[in-house]
């Protein structure tokens, strides 16, 4: 954050760091150029293991040997299990990447799609699409995508406008605005459910809780079409975000077009959150847990955090979904409940470490 005229008062804030660092303890840190390949290798291995576990786990654990002969097992695997695991991976990777980007952009370790109200806005957009009959899963999917994208984008603009004063984004105001926006969006979703017919209301309800149900690969390809541009844009922004995470003016003086970076990150984040909300409902806190786990392991360089969050986010949501599918035996928990149960405490832990939140 930037301190304006009164630097003396503001200078004390940083002395209590928001997240404690391990760098000071272990003295020597490898340069980012050496850290990234190792980190990617390790997380790719984790992703392979997670994928295998997620593919195996389920109401009926799959014996991979059966896939050769057993037609039923093959159908189950290729039409249900594999698409679902892939979807969880894509959604998790996207949410984690968006979280890491928003944290850098707003210089706020607590920022993520849910806490900023972006998910809520996306959910409202998607609910409207379902209520007006664009919710049919086969042909109508892109309409939900676009509606959720529009909702997420609008929410992000509102929150940002409210929290920004001049060159300074107030961290407390940002989160408060996000929480309130989530409430307002959730209220609208309830009102829509109340007025819409029974089957659509049920569809909205099932979907708001967050589930990664999917049959076949149609939806996977469509998601990929929408998500891949977002992944590419955020990956391209990594260097600029690394500089912006220090402070905006320094970034600008180093040649970053801060306004352009901001617009690109908004557009990419809204698109990705919109799509993930449209297919899976609001799955919270993935964008908080994953980037912070990466920080603890591999340090604070955003150019390392972004690609690592992509890989670890995929692993995390695959495993969370595997837990959601198996923990009740025959039934199934919404995956959003699992991530919230893990992420809520992480959020509170981060908040506690933030000994003094400036401008709260």
């Amino acid at each position, binding site marked *: 954050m930037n301190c304006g005229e009164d630097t003396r008062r503001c200078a004390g804030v*940083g*002395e209590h*760091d928001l997240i404690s660092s391990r760098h000071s303890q272990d003295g020597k840190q490898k340069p980012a150029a050496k850290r990234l390949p190792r980190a990617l290798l390790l997380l790719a291995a984790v992703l392979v293991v997670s994928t295998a576990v997620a593919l195996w786990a389920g109401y009926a654990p799959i014996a991979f040997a059966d896939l050769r002969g057993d037609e039923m097992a093959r159908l189950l695997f290729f039409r249900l299990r594999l698409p679902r695991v892939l979807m969880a991976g894509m959604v998790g990777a996207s949410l984690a990447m968006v979280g890491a980007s928003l944290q850098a952009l707003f210089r706020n370790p607590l920022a993520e799609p849910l806490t900023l109200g972006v998910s809520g806005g996306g959910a409202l957009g998607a609910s409207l699409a379902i209520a007006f009959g664009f919710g049919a899963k086969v042909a109508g999917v892109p309409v939900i995508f676009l509606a959720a994208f529009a909702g997420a984008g609008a929410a992000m603009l509102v929150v940002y406008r409210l929290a920004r004063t001049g060159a300074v984004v107030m961290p407390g105001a940002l989160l408060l605005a996000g929480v309130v926006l989530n409430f307002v969006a959730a209220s609208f979703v309830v009102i829509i459910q109340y007025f819409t017919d029974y089957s659509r209301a049920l569809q909205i309800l099932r979907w708001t809780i967050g589930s990664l149900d999917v049959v076949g690969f149609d939806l996977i390809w469509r998601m990929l079409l929408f998500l891949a541009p977002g992944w590419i844009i955020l990956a*391209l922004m990594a260097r600029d975000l690394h500089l912006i*995470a220090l402070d905006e003016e*320094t970034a600008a003086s180093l040649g970053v077009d801060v306004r352009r970076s901001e617009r690109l990150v908004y557009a990419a984040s809204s698109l990705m959150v919109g799509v993930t909300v449209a297919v899976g409902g609001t799955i919270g806190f993935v964008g908080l847990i994953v980037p912070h786990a990466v*920080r603890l392991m591999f340090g604070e360089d955003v150019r390392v955090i972004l690609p690592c969050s992509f890989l670890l986010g995929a692993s995390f949501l695959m495993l969370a979904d595997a837990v959601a599918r198996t923990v009740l035996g025959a039934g199934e928990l919404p995956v959003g409940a699992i991530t919230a149960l893990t992420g809520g405490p992480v959020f509170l832990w981060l908040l506690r470490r933030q000994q003094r939140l400036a401008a709260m």
Partner: protein
Amino acid sequence: MNVSNERRAGALLEARELHFAYAPGLPEVVRGASLALGRGLLAALIGANGSGKSSLIRLLGGVSQPARGEVLFDGVPLRSLEPRVRARRIAYVPQASAGVFPLTALEVVLMGRSPYTSRFRFENERDISVAHDALAAVDAAHLAARSVTELSGGERQLVALARALAQEPECLLLDEPSAALDLKHRAGLIRHLARLRDERGITALIVTHDLQLLDPAFDQVFAMRGGAVAASGAPAEVLRDEVLAEVYADEHVRARQAFGRTFVWSE
């Protein structure tokens, strides 16, 4: 040959009738400011709160763009320089910011190398050695592995200065670098800047409220009032009762020479 000699003698950074407002419709904070910063000089920008110092120095650094007027760097319009090219020649250090993420001091200083590295490359061995040298140049080599959020205000200021030096600039622009510093560290900062000027020919302009800092190390002083540069010259020319009374709109301001420097106070 002649041209380059002429350039060397002239101003490195020149502002011509700059105007700037934070948004259209808001009052202008910079109103017709002009100045010429001599090459290889250490200069200060002084003035009352709200006189437009920070805005002016941001315009000089290309961090914000003037509504009217022009900034010339080495005789070329600053606007015409590609931002990353500009960042290799002019380094700007904003007012002390606390920082949120516990980056190490070395990581922060390495950011100063970003104008030299491409989007998909990390810093190479040379960049890392430049960063270490920059930290050493401000006597902060021991901070390299420390997390910036754990540093004191003074240490953080040194890291920011080292980051600027890592850009290998011809010109340093510092916004209130001494604000968070105690007596000893203020003197140390000015010594660093004077040494960089003498040894590397780096031109520097600092915004400061601390008039005691100004001489004998400083070559030039610019005094702002109401968004324009009201007085400029050698410290002894600007730090005088009648000039300062005008600049601060305070008739009680006094300036006296003693011990080879000027003491300024308000009665």
